[in-house]
C-alpha cells in the first residue's frame, strides 16, 4: 500500500515538474552548458516520453543540480549510429547498453568505463550482471536496468467464447489450437515470419527453454557439451514447425506490426509474446487479455522461462561528467528507479534484488513466473554470436524457414550447428 501511495505521489510530482520546471530549466540553462548536464544515448525512442516526464524529473527531485537529456535513435539504427558517435567522440555521457557482445566490444575498445565501484551495483545478482560483464565475470561495465520475459498472450473473450482454458502442457496447447481452428472464426496463432526475428525470439527462444532446461542447456551449449543437433533443439524446431497450420493466411509475408494488429483487432486468439508487448496491447486492445507461460512438453515437470537481460546503462569513457554519471547510475540501481521503470513501462522488469510491485496484472503475471519457473537468458546471446556466421542471425533465418516449411527441423538444427562449429572451438570436435 505504501509503495502504491508513493508512486502516485511521484507521478503527480513528475507531471508537475515536467510541465512547469523542466521546460523552463532546460531553456534557461541551455546556454550555460554546465559540467552537470548528462546526455543519455538510447534505442528506446518509444520510451522518450516516460523518461522525460517521469524518470528524469524523479531523479531531479533528489539531485536538482544534474540535468539529464534523453536522446534516442530508432532501434535498428542505434548500434551503427552509436559506434559512429563513439568513434567520433560526440557520444553522450551515458550509453544504453545492448546485452553481451555488442557492449563487451565497446568496453574492450575502451569506450565504456567499469562500474564495479559505482554504489548500487551490489543490488544485482550475478545472472543479472552476466550480460554486461567480462567473460571472467570480474568487471561489470553497465548498470543492469531491465529484462524482458517471453510467454503467450491470449484473447480472454475468444477463450471464453470457445470455452477454452489456458493450456499448461504442449498437448493442451495443441488441443486448444485445434479447437480454435475448427471453429474457424479466429486465427489460432498470431505470428508472421517476414521479419524473421519473431520466429526466433517469440518462437524458438520462447518455447525452447523448456526443452533445453534453461540455464543448464545454455551453459552446456557454450561449453560444447551439447550440440544444436541434440534432441532438445530438434524438438524445439519440430514443435515450432507444427505451428504453421495454425498461423494466419499468408503468414510468410506477415510483419511484426501486422501480427500486433491481428491480435489487437481481436482476430487472433493466441499471440506468442514478449513482455514488452503488454503496454502496447494495453493501449490498443479493447478486449481483456491475459497470459500463459510456455506450455510444458510431455514428461516435463519443471518449467523454464526466457527472462532475457535486455537493457543496461553504462558510462562513456570520454565523458566529462563521470562523477555525475556515476551518481545517476547509483540512482538507476535504487529501488526507487526500479519501481518507476516497472510501472511506467510494464513489460520491462527491473533486474535489481529490490522487491517491486508491478501493477499491470498481465505484466505482473509475466514477472510472477519467476517464482514458479527457472529463468534463463536467450542461448544465442552470450559468446555464441561472436563469430561469423553469428548464431543469433542464423537462428532468425532457420526458425523462419522451419515455420515457412522450407526447412525440416533436423536440417535447421544441422545448419546452425555447422555454422557454429565453423568458428567456435568447443563445437569443432
Amino acid at each position, binding site marked *: 500500500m505504501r509503495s502504491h501511495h508513493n508512486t502516485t505521489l511521484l507521478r503527480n510530482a513528475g507531471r508537475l515538474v515536467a510541465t512547469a520546471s523542466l521546460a523552463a530549466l532546460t531553456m534557461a540553462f541551455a546556454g550555460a552548458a554546465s559540467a552537470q548536464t548528462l546526455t543519455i544515448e538510447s534505442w528506446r525512442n518509444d520510451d522518450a516520453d516516460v523518461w522525460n516526464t517521469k524518470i528524469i524529473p524523479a531523479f531531479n527531485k533528489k539531485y536538482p543540480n544534474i540535468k539529464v537529456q534523453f536522446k534516442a535513435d530508432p532501434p535498428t539504427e542505434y548500434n*551503427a549510429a552509436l559506434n559512429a558517435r563513439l568513434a567520433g567522440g560526440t557520444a553522450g555521457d551515458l550509453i544504453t547498453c545492448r546485452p553481451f557482445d555488442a557492449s563487451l566490444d565497446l568496453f574492450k*575498445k575502451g569506450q565504456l568505463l567499469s562500474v564495479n565501484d559505482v554504489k548500487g551495483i551490489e543490488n544485482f545478482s550475478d545472472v543479472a550482471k552476466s550480460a554486461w560483464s567480462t567473460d571472467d565475470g570480474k568487471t561489470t561495465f553497465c548498470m543492469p536496468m531491465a529484462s524482458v520475459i517471453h510467454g503467450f498472450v491470449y484473447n480472454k473473450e475468444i477463450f471464453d467464447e470457445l470455452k477454452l482454458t489456458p493450456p499448461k502442457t504442449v498437448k493442451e496447447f495443441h488441443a486448444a489450437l485445434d479447437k480454435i481452428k475448427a471453429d474457424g472464426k479466429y486465427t489460432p496463432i498470431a505470428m508472421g515470419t517476414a521479419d*524473421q526475428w519473431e520466429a526466433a525470439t517469440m518462437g524458438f527462444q520462447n518455447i525452447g527453454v523448456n526443452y533445453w532446461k534453461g540455464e543448464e542447456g545454455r551453459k552446456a551449449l557454450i561449453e560444447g557439451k551439447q550440440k544444436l543437433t541434440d534432441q532438445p533443439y530438434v524438438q524445439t524446431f519440430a514443435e515450432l514447425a507444427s505451428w504453421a497450420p495454425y498461423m494466419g493466411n*499468408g503468414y510468410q*509475408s*506477415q510483419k511484426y506490426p501486422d501480427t500486433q494488429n491481428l491480435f489487437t483487432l481481436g482476430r487472433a486468439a493466441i499471440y506468442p509474446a514478449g513482455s514488452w508487448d503488454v503496454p502496447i496491447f494495453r493501449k490498443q486492445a479493447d478486449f481483456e487479455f491475459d497470459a500463459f507461460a510456455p506450455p510444458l512438453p510431455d514428461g516435463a515437470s519443471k518449467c523454464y522461462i526466457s527472462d532475457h537481460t535486455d537493457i543496461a546503462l553504462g558510462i562513456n569513457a570520454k565523458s566529462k561528467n563521470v562523477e555525475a554519471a556515476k551518481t545517476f547510475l547509483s540512482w538507476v540501481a535504487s529501488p526507487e528507479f526500479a519501481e518507476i521503470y516497472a510501472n511506467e513501462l510494464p513489460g520491462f522488469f527491473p533486474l535489481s534484488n529490490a522487491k517491486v510491485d508491478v501493477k499491470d496484472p498481465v505484466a505482473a503475471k509475466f514477472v510472477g513466473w519467476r517464482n514458479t519457473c527457472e529463468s534463463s537468458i536467450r542461448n544465442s546471446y552470450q559468446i555464441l554470436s561472436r563469430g*561469423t556466421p553469428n548464431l543469433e*542471425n542464423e537462428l532468425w533465418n532457420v526458425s*523462419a524457414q522451419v515455420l*515457412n516449411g522450407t526447412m525440416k527441423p533436423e536440417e535447421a538444427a544441422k545448419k546452425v550447428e555447422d555454422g557454429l562449429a565453423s568458428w567456435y572451438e568447443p563445437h569443432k570436435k
Partner: protein
Amino acid sequence: MTDIAAPEVQTESFVGRSRFPIHIVVFLAPALVIYTLFSIYPLFDTIRLSLYAGDETGARHFVGLGNFYTLLSDPAWSGQFWNALRNNLIFFAIHMVVQNGIGLGLAMLLSLPRLTGGSVYRTLLFLPTMLSVVIIGFIWQLMLNPLWGIAESLLAVVGLKQFFGPWLGQESTALLTVSLISVWQFVGIPMMLIYAALINIPDDLLDAATVDGAGPFSVFWFVRLPLILPTLGVVSILTFVANFNAFDLIYAIKGALAGPNFSTDILGTFFYRTFFGYQLQVGSPTMGATVATAMLVVILIGVLIYLFGVQRRLQRHTF
C-alpha cells in the same frame, strides 16, 4: 580538349606575355574540389581501408588482400557474396527486360502523333519515380498484404484468386516481387529518356520511309530503333549502375537480412550488414570496405564491357 589547349598555353607563357591562366583553375576548381573531397578521396580511402583488418581493441593492421581472400574463399562469406551477386544479376535482368521494355513501349505510345492528353500520362507515369522509396515500399506491402491487402480481392474479381500468395514472403517469389516493385517505381526514367530521343527524330525521315512503302513495324525496326540505339545504351548503363548500387527498396521492404533465407539479398544489403552490423552481427568497417570495393570492381567490369563492347560500335546521328 587539354591536348589542344596545352600547346597554346605553352607558347603564350613562352612569349612571357601572359601570366599563369588563372581562369582555368577557377573554372575547374569547384567541380574538382567537390569531386575530390566527396567522391575520389572516399573512394580511394575505401580501397585503402579494405586492405586492413581490425582487432577487438579497435586497432587496425595491414593485411594486404587478406580480406578479399576471406570474402571469396571462406564459406561463411563467399556463400553470401555469390548469393548476393547472383540475386543482383537477376534483379538487373528483370529491370533490363521489364523496366526498359515497358519504358520503350510507353515512350512509343507517348510519341504517337495523334495522342491527346500526352502530358497527363507522362506526368502520371513519371510520378512514382519522385516518391520516396519508403512510401513505395509501404504502399506495395500494404497492397500485397495477405491479411488486409487489396491484391487478393482484386484478383478474385477477375477470377484469378487461386494464383494469389504471400509473394513477398516466399523464397521463390520474393526477389521477383521486389524487382517488379522497383520496376514500377523507376519505369518513368527510361520512358522519358527514350521519349526525348523519339521526338527528336525528324518527321521527314519517317515520312520518307512511309513513302518508300514501309509499314509501322518496319518504320520502328529499321528507322526509329537504330536512331534511338545510343539512348538505349545510356539507359542500359544507367540501369546497370543503379541496380548494382540498389539498397533502399529492399531494406525498406525486407530489412537488412533480406529474407526469406537471403533470397532478396543484393550487394547493397550485403554491404550494409557487413559494414554496420545487424542485430548481434557486429559491424566491420574493414570487411565492409572490402565488400564495397568488390562492388566497385563488379560495376567497373560492367561499365568497361559496355564502353568497349557497345559504346564504341554505336553510331550517333545528328540531324
